[in-house]
């Protein structure tokens, strides 16, 4: 099928001359000339077989003209196809450009700067100028760019499964608009959106078709915060949390660090309150009440482990305690019956309440989206009682969405009252509550039109399917959490001619202007006036300054709250035979939208470190009780028992994973896996990963339910995890102290007092050549990682993967311990299996000054440069792998296969296809390789797309070579060159601090990773390294790493029943026969001072 990119609309402004090239390309003269001049590229023009890939390549290579200010995305070929006859202004070939845009997610958006290399977006970074962002992102955002180049995304317009053209679809939409009449029988099903343009179009449609029905559905829905606030305050409001302003945070099953919305924001805010510069600095304290082991629980100073269904009781118990003491006895009485069911530790709640009461106005109680409305109401009441509104929570106006639920729509479909069903995005056939039987119900509409990113479960076999454009291909707008208006700018012409939601709605509304650009421009005019300059500034900055929502004052409406709360009944207590099931948003798949995203599939879950699938999580005790416990024997392929879970007549099957820290008799099921059916292709990446937890999820039990049974099938299932061993064995790898210990410590640096052995002081026979080389280096690069700030969210891992072209290796190779992540997050548990403390440590190349890897390489493939970088020369590496064996941090990664050129299914052993006998596309692999060694065995569609996502500044490694973190040397060099150019004759070649960031640093919302010039005492990294928490991992080996860590500080409340004098890891360290670093500080301090 020839898919010639559709001609793009002529923009209002911006250069137009590139349009002529397309015309030119069609003339015979041009073809002849091109063939003569550029045979390699141009021959593809006339070759009908490869024309498709050529066109794809071309369309992917087109830049937005005129800094993205031009209006519509207009195409410009890259230099290697045609030379520029006239260089577009400001364009330098090979120099990446950044465009401000945003990633829309449900009711909010992540402000972004997208990097474009010669017309193809290659990396997403947070927009640091945005008033509510520091440039950090979450892992979902980092991975979303890969979806753009997903070869399995919907690429065609179909009617009843037959391919149609875009024009056909547009015609159909036009007819629909004309024939809809009053809109009776016309129903929409959409996801949530914060787009003012969509809201405007929705309004137009509802005006024009008053009888049309609009429904919204999100499988993972965070709207409950708004619902509760609206009910509690009697006005349409939604809360906006200022976690950074809170010194006491209580999370009631709220995984605001890992699983709630706006992670980039809440992690930043939380980490800000966590960071200490010196002794005596304040630090927030986090209490978590939860059933599953979440990232929030992992970062909590105190964690109360109770079943998720018992959290309402815990909330009520906490509320009773606080309300009684703050003089709201009447509300406490309402909650008393619910509070009685609280199963946990009374003293825990009492002391937690006391802490909150002692910090009135500086506390914050949060409830998670999984919890019912009652818990959210209680939380609102609590925050009012604690005077937290106005300081740690703001209320923002939030109009009630005029939308029905998916259940209403299903009912209407069953009643046959829906003629035309328009599905905008989403995948309801997969993720709608199971009791709705959506796949069947959907077919009941006379006409189904679906705009979808994939041809997946919801693909209408009868009706229209339109490909949805990726957000990097679309014009749009959105509002971030604080209400700031952000633009969504395309960086590339839709690769497969996809349509945006806005265009589709505009066409249905029968509007004149259906170009999304015009729609967004028009909306902007309505919001901020019509000035072109304002518009340009809006696009350039990536946000509209001052458009954040104004916070409003609310008055609690106690009768409404009491009424809502009075009806709340206590949940049954889960037992071994009536297990509690909790559905949670997966840390990687989200609700399933990243299922075909290889980076996300291979990203280890921050808690379980599991890749490529989901598991049935349960506590170790429960697993033992049920006879499905498996001792972790550190075997590569862990054989987990395969069990069946039955709940209300529905069942699923999956492997068991015993999770330390999980509540007993609770089962955690991650959503988003187990995609099994699709008319075309489920996705070559996500295929067969995990089980579908949605199959158990019903309208009544969207988040948790009690009463499930587990049966052991007796079968086993192999799992791939990246870190089996959970304990540190008392080794001082991560060093921790409590805030009290830290503040009382009299020595120089308590973290260094953890050293088991002091590094030997010796007189070298000859000086380290680096010491001399250093004098020639302008900079000395180094990194400091603050373990107090790091929450383990893993954004850095995905950012690194995206920046450095790190390949994925597939489930089987992960089981062989061959994952390629340059940066990994080590996760350790300390303490008991029931109530462990979890700690994270980002581990990457330490860039040792005396690097053990360097002197064992026989071919000089890894050497030191004068700026202190341990550099890896891929071209020189022969792959003896000795460097990895000798690396104490084990951060080197080896290309056991040609990961970049082999399709995933060829990476599943134990028998691999060999090019000696295998053919791809009917061509013998060896011959294929001979003709073009770069082509590999990937199907051509995948290959053509995947090579577009690669960062051109970083080599793509072949098989047989070692690779590792380079401190983003391409960014270092870029900055140094730019500075040298700027310096000119002045000689001022020092790159100022903060000019650039490494990819991990940039993605880190917690600002835990800081990189810079350690030769400059004023740089941020030098300041961090000068702190009294700074230490080297494995100090005694004398490797002198350039990457150092800042010890983690915990802030327990000494009055709590689970208070601890020292963190469990420190305890473990001492129990292993080491000296107590805090008792021997006089001695250690002296030594540290001396040496």
């Amino acid at each position: 099928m020839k898919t010639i990119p559709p001609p793009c609309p002529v923009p209002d402004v911006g250069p137009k001359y590139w349009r002529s090239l397309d015309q030119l390309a069609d003339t015979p003269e041009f073809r002849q000339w091109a063939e003569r001049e550029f045979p390699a590229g141009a021959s593809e023009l006339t070759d009908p077989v490869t024309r498709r890939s050529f066109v794809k390549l071309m369309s992917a290579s087109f830049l937005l003209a005129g800094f993205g200010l031009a209006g519509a995305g207009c195409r410009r070929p890259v230099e290697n196809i045609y030379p520029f006859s006239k260089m577009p202004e400001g364009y330098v070939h090979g120099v990446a450009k950044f465009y401000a845009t945003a990633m829309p997610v449900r009711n909010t958006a992540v402000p972004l700067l997208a990097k474009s290399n010669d017309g193809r977006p290659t990396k997403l970074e947070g927009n640091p100028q945005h008033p509510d962002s520091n440039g950090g992102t979450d892992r979902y955002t980092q991975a979303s760019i890969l979806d753009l180049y997903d070869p399995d995304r919907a690429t065609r317009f179909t009617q009843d499964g037959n391919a149609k053209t875009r024009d056909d679809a547009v015609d159909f939409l036009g007819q629909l608009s004309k024939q809809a009449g009053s809109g009776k029988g016309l129903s929409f099903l959409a996801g949530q959106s914060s787009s003012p343009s969509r809201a405007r179009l929705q309004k137009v449609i509802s005006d024009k078709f008053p009888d049309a029905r609009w429904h919204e559905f999100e499988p993972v829905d965070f709207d409950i915060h708004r619902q509760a606030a609206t009910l509690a305050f009697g006005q349409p409001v939604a809360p906006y949390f200022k976690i950074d302003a809170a010194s006491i945070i209580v999370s009631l099953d709220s995984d605001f660090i890992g699983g709630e919305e706006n992670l980039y924001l809440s992690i930043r805010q939380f980490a800000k309150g966590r960071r200490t510069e010196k002794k005596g600095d304040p630090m927030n304290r986090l209490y978590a009440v939860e059933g599953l082991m979440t990232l929030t629980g992992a970062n909590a100073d105190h964690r109360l482990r109770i079943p998720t269904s018992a959290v309402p009781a815990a909330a009520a118990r906490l509320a009773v305690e606080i309300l009684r003491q703050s003089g709201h006895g009447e509300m406490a009485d309402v909650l008393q019956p619910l509070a009685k069911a609280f199963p946990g530790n009374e003293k825990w709640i009492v002391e937690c309440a006391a802490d909150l009461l002692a910090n009135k106005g500086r506390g914050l109680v949060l409830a998670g989206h999984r919890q019912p409305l009652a818990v959210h109401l209680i939380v609102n009441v609590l925050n009012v009682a604690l005077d937290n509104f106005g300081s740690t929570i703001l209320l923002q106006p939030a109009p009630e969405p005029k939308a029905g639920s998916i259940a209403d729509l299903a009912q209407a479909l069953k009643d046959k009252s829906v003629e035309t069903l328009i599905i905008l995005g989403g995948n309801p056939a997969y993720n709608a509550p199971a009791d709705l039987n959506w796949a069947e119900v959907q077919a009941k509409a006379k006409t189904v039109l679906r705009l979808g990113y994939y041809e997946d479960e919801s693909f209408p076999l009868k009706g229209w399917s339109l490909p949805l454009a990726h957000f990097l291909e679309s014009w749009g707008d959105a509002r971030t959490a604080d209400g700031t208006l952000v633009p969504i700018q395309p960086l590339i012409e839709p690769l497969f001619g996809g349509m945006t939601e806005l265009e589709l709605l505009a066409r249905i509304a029968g509007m004149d202007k259906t170009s999304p650009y015009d729609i967004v421009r028009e909306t902007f005019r309505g919001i901020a006036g019509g000035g072109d300059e304002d518009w340009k500034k809006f696009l350039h900055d990536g946000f509209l300054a001052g458009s954040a929502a104004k916070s409003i004052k609310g008055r609690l409406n106690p009768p409404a709250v009491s009424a809502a709360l009075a009806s709340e009944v206590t949940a049954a207590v889960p037992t071994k035979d009536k297990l509690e099931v909790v559905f949670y948003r997966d840390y990687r798949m989200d609700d399933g939208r990243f299922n075909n995203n290889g980076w996300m599939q291979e990203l280890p879950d921050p808690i379980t470190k599991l890749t490529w699938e989901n598991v049935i999580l349960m506590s170790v005790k429960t697993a033992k009780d049920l006879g499905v416990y498996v001792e972790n024997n550190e075997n590569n392929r862990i054989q987990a028992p395969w069990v069946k879970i039955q709940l209300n007549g529905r069942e699923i099957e999956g492997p068991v994973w015993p999770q330390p820290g999980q509540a007993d008799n609770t089962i955690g099921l991650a959503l988003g896996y187990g995609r099994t059916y699709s008319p075309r292709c489920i996705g070559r990446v996500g295929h067969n990963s995990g089980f579908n937890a949605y199959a158990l999820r019903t309208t009544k039990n969207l988040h948790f339910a009690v009463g499930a049974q587990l049966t052991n099938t007796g079968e086993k299932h192999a799992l791939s995890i990246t870190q089996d061993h959970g304990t540190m064995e008392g080794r001082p790898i991560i060093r921790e102290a409590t805030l009290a210990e830290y503040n009382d410590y009299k020595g120089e640096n308590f973290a260094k007092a953890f050293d088991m052995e002091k590094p030997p002081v010796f007189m070298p026979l000859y000086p380290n050549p680096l010491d001399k080389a250093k004098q020639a280096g302008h900079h000395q690069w180094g990194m400091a990682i603050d373990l107090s700030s790091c929450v383990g969210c893993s954004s850095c891992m995905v950012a690194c993967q995206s920046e450095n072209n790190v390949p994925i290796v597939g489930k089987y190779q992960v089981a062989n311990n061959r994952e390629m992540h340059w940066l990994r997050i080590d996760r350790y548990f300390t303490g008991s299996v029931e109530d462990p403390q979890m700690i994270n440590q980002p581990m990457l190349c330490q860039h040792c000054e005396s690097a053990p890897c360097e002197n064992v390489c026989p071919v000089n493939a890894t050497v030191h440069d004068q700026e202190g970088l341990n550099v890896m020369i891929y071209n020189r590496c022969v792959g003896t792998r000795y460097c990895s064996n000798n690396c104490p941090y084990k951060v080197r990664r080896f290309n056991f296969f040609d990961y970049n050129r082999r399709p995933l299914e060829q990476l599943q052993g134990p028998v691999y296809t060999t090019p000696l006998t295998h053919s791809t596309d009917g061509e013998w692999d060896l011959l294929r390789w001979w003709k073009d060694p770069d082509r590999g065995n990937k199907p051509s569609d995948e290959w053509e797309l995947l090579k577009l996502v690669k960062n051109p500044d970083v080599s793509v490694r072949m098989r047989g070579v070692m690779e590792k973190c380079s401190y983003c040397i391409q960014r270092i060099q870029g900055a140094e060159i730019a500075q040298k150019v700027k310096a000119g004759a002045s000689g001022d070649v020092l790159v100022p601090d903060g000019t650039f960031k490494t990819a991990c640093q940039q993605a880190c919302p917690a600002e835990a990773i800081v990189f810079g010039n350690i030769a400059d005492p004023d740089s941020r990294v030098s300041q961090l390294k000068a702190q009294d928490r700074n230490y080297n991992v494995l100090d005694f080996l004398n490797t002198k790493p350039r990457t150092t860590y800042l010890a983690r500080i915990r802030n327990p409340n000494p009055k709590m029943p689970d208070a601890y004098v020292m963190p469990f890891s420190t305890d473990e360290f001492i129990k292993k026969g080491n000296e107590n670093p805090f008792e021997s500080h006089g001695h250690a301090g002296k030594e540290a001072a001396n040496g």
Partner: protein
Amino acid sequence: MADAVISKPLAQSDAANQVAGIVVKAPPRELEREPMVRNQRSIGWISDAIAGVAEGKTPRWWWLAFIPSVIMMTACFTMILYLVSVGVGVWGPGHPVMWGWAIVNFVWWIGIGHAGTLISAILFLLRQKWRTSINRAAEAMTIFAVMCAGIFPVIHIGRIWFGWWLFPIPNGNDIWPQFRSPLMWDVFAVSTYFTVSVLFWYMGLIPDLAVMRDRAKNKIRKFAYGLFSLGWTGSNRHWSNYEKAYLILAGLSTPLVLSVHSIVSLDFSVSQLPGWHTTIFPPYFVAGAVFSGFGMVLSLLIPLRRVLRLEDIITLRHVELMCKVTLATGSIVGYAYGIEFFIAWYSGNPYERYAFINRATGHYAWAYWTMITCNVIVPQLFWFKKIRTNMLVVFILSILVNIGMWFERFVIVVISLHRDFMPSNWGYFRPTWVDILTFLGTFGLFFTFFLLFLRFVPLIAISEVKGVTPQADPHHPLGGAKKGGH
């Protein structure tokens, strides 16, 4: 020492009385050495017996051994082809165990390659004449073992086609190998050892090749043996030059015996991995290598002497002596194991301690205890003469020694790596079918060469054996004065 009767000067008057009391003992029998060649075999018989193996119709047992060996060798090369075309990932390694069977096999084969040169060079310098019956076969074994060993470091690297970068070849980029890397030293050590071993072996072969030439019954054989015997006529001058050259080469080879495995051990001890980072490695590796080398010589020669009816040349005494060497080196190895544990404890370094506790009690404890059984306990049985002289038992024990030494390398390489500094990396290594087939395949390679060696080259140094027969002694009745001939 003979009993001495001390006579002191006696008084005349007492003389008569005294004389009666004097007991004149018969002089003790002179200790008789066991002859090197039993049954007073003649020189002609020796030539026939040894050269006969490589002459005449190929026996059936040879084909029965040769065909499976060739098949296994083919499997080895197929696996290598597969490995090169797909990637090193067809083997088991992954982090943290980046070296797996390849390096285990390499060190194991190299170790086996130690006995030959030790026997031919060091024992030659030490005038241990019993070496003559076994040195030729042991040297051949050395060469083939080093060939098998040499394959592994070459194919285990990620980009085999750039393996030549490990050699200091001048190039346009002016990039040299990194001389600080022990892998680099390995290249020199192993290639030197191989070259000298081949030279030494060939040197020793020349007079025997001449024997073969002279016995040859067809032109092709005559030509071929004639070509390789380099015009040997057995003149005094030839013998004189030959003896000198042989002595010089023995002198050259002797340090190599010690250096090769010392350097191989530096592959490990230069690193800082607990379990590798040990100063005891060089002597301990050399002892282990000699231990395994003698184990392999025993495994090869015990069946051979039986099948080829060479019991009169490779006598029980030879086997016993080799058992004693095995016992001595096995005890050194056992001592080294003990010292490693002691040092790990004595160092006070928790990482080091953990590494050794993990060896004995961790997930791979089975491998460790296999090693201890085979390398420490089994050789102690050689204290008993009954065991040393029971060929079947010695054969089985020698196989166990080889298994034990393979596990020693496995213990060092895999167990040390699989749990090192950072618990987050810990993992479990498993070989794949390709690992196993490649290793088994090298046996095919080894035996193919060894069987060819049996059929074409005298497997025992004819001239040297003749030199230690009684007849060679000019004082023997048949040409020499005494029986036994020394």
